[in-house]
């Protein structure tokens, strides 16, 4: 994995020193809140409902074990003993004191982590497939490219004051696990006639205007990536609306002006940008790539895994849901669920973070990943280490066998923490997980995603079942969408109809599940396929036959 060099370290130390002085000047009154706010946001510091919140970037979701331990240190020394992994492969601390944050950032710097550009109208943490570098279905590892983009975008002078925030995601697999079509720029690593390159998507996004990204360039040669991305940013920086915050994202620029006009603007910008790059970026990429060499895989005895599966049904259930095919047949990708039934999705205690770091060292070559689905991944685990790993995870409350199932719910912090929220989302996730626990194995693959406001941090638009919490005349009300999909078959979910009050949303979801079990053609037809086959009507009937359960039509 990437290791900071002297330049990186010096840059980060200087940046942290500047922020320490900015905090001091805010505290002694030299800076007003209006002056300080953009400075703290550039460094990942929000003021939330009950406290400050520090959002730390986990670049492209990749962590070394020592970095995970540092995240645990922050939770323990400066927060309340836990952290919250987010839907953009970041971690948030909910209770830091303002004056402690510079110390937290210095501690992060010792392991090459930072909170730069995790907020503000800048290029945010570049996200990637959480199985990158490990998945059997991968064409190329996207992480070196993501690191190149991180270095290029960090403190890029031209793009510090964009019309609005800007999100880039990249995948090296045809099976899109990075929700690339819901990003301002989605990059898909592809090959054409033996040549490596990218399919470039633009204008995707969730929020109040959910849009699926469109193809800006069907094939971009590998060497043109940075100048082309820079041309996109430059065109957006010039054309993006600054008069209305809600129309300022690239997706609106593309929607209002049309894809062709935006493409023309990018292509007009591109030649000069291309000429300015002398090839140093490709040299840098080559250097970065050496850091992402696969670990020295040892041979593993797959027989041991089969024996353990045969004798231990709990272990077998866990391997059925929480493993994914690795590029080596004798290894597996392990997803550690942070979705224990009834727990807060994405929360991990300092003790759990340390346990995961230790287990990564013991069984997984010291590597970890954070998924946008708010779970932790051990990307490389030898098959014969799985039983021991499972036993250890159980001891730390980390062996929940529910990855991809109904209780593996994405939820934003919602009204319990967030100033933007219009309703709670975490308690809805907790209650649904408990309600569906007993039959989720029967239900099979299902993605439920919950947002506590229209900004859609919980990705509800791309949930097979999406739930959006709103404030209707001072009362929480939950709208349901169906048929959303965040993969290569990306789709925005369709609203079922009137929303449900808080005490009726869980029974409503249970009725949807009942309907699905009746409608499906067999256990191998997942919810999303049944929905695509039968459409909205039967689900609508299941929801609204109990007319007393809905609030008045909103």
């Amino acid at each position, binding site marked *: 994995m990437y290791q900071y060099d002297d330049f990186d370290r010096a840059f980060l130390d200087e940046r942290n020193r500047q922020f320490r002085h900015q905090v001091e000047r805010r505290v002694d009154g030299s800076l007003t809140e209006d002056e300080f706010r953009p400075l703290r946001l550039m460094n990942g510091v929000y*003021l*939330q409902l*009950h406290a*400050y919140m520090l959002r730390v970037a986990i670049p492209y979701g990749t962590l070394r074990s020592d970095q995970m331990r540092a995240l645990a240190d922050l939770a323990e020394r400066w927060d309340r003993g836990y952290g919250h992994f987010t839907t953009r492969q970041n971690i948030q601390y909910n209770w830091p004191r303002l004056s402690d944050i510079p110390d937290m950032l210095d501690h992060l710097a010792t392991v090459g982590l930072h909170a730069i550009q995790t907020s503000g109208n800048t290029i945010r943490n570049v996200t990637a497939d959480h199985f990158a570098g490990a998945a059997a279905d991968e064409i190329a590892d996207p992480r070196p490219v993501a690191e190149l983009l991180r270095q290029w975008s960090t403190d890029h002078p031209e793009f510090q004051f964009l019309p609005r925030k800007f999100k880039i995601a990249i995948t090296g697999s045809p099976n899109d696990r990075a929700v690339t079509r819901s990003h301002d720029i989605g990059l898909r690593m592809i090959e054409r006639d033996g040549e490596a390159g990218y399919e470039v998507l633009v204008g995707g996004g969730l929020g109040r205007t959910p849009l699926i990204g469109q193809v800006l360039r069907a094939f971009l040669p590998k060497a043109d990536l940075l100048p082309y991305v820079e041309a996109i940013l430059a065109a957006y920086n010039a054309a993006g609306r600054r008069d209305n915050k809600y129309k300022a994202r690239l997706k609106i620029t593309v929607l209002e002006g049309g894809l062709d006009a935006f493409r023309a603007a990018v292509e007009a910008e591109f030649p000069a940008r291309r000429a300015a790059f002398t090839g140093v970026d490709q040299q840098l990429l080559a250097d970065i790539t050496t850091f992402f060499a696969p670990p020295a895989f040892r041979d593993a005895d797959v027989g041991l895994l089969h024996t353990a599966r045969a004798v231990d049904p709990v272990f077998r259930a866990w391997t059925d849901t929480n493993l994914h095919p690795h590029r080596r047949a004798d290894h597996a990708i392990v997803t550690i669920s942070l979705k224990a039934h009834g727990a*807060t999705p994405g929360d991990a205690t300092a003790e759990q973070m340390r346990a995961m770091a230790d287990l990564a060292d013991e069984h997984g070559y010291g590597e970890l990943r954070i998924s946008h689905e708010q779970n932790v991944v051990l990307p490389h685990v030898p098959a014969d280490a799985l039983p021991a790993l499972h036993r250890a995870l159980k001891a730390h409350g980390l062996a929940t066998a529910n990855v991809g199932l109904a209780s593996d719910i994405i939820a934003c912090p919602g009204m319990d923490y967030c100033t933007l929220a219009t309703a709670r989302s*975490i308690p809805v996730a907790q209650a649904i997980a408990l309600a569906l626990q007993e039959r989720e194995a029967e239900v099979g693959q299902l993605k439920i995603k919950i947002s506590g406001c229209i900004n859609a941090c919980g990705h509800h638009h791309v949930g097979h079942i999406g739930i959006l919490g709103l404030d209707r005349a001072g009362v929480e009300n939950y709208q349901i969408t169906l048929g959303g999909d965040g993969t290569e078959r990306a789709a925005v979910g369709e609203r079922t109809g009137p929303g449900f009050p808080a005490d009726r949303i869980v029974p409503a979801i249970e009725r949807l599940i009942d309907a699905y079990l009746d409608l499906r053609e067999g256990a191998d037809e997942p919810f999303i396929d049944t929905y695509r086959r039968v459409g909205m009507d039967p689900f609508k009937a299941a929801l609204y036959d109990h007319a007393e359960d809905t609030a008045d039509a909103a």
Partner: protein
Amino acid sequence: MSRRSFAPKVVTANHLLDGDVVYLSATGEWVRDLARAELIEDEAHAQIRLLDAERQKNVVVGPYLADMAPTGDGPVPTHFREAFRASGPSNRPEHRRAPPAPATPDPIVAPRDTVRQQDRQTEGAL
């Protein structure tokens, strides 16, 4: 606006140093306990108190007037957002700063929770 239609208010903000939710008391102190906040029933007085708060730029961040209802135990929120601010996150009871305020929505429960908890106890006994 007529005086009759003015909803009672408190001045609230977040503390600059720790981000805590704070309220302005009648004696001008910033207090963490909503019960000790000054309940303001006069619109002109509310504006003056808000100006007082806004001048304290190095003590609090983002002061504003929040609607409250008067009770024998002091002001209580009329909207659930203020109820969450007053009492803390509902998902982590250990981080509550006060008992749930009256406007706090009920916990969201799985309908079959009770049954399942009995099941668990049985499993534990085995």
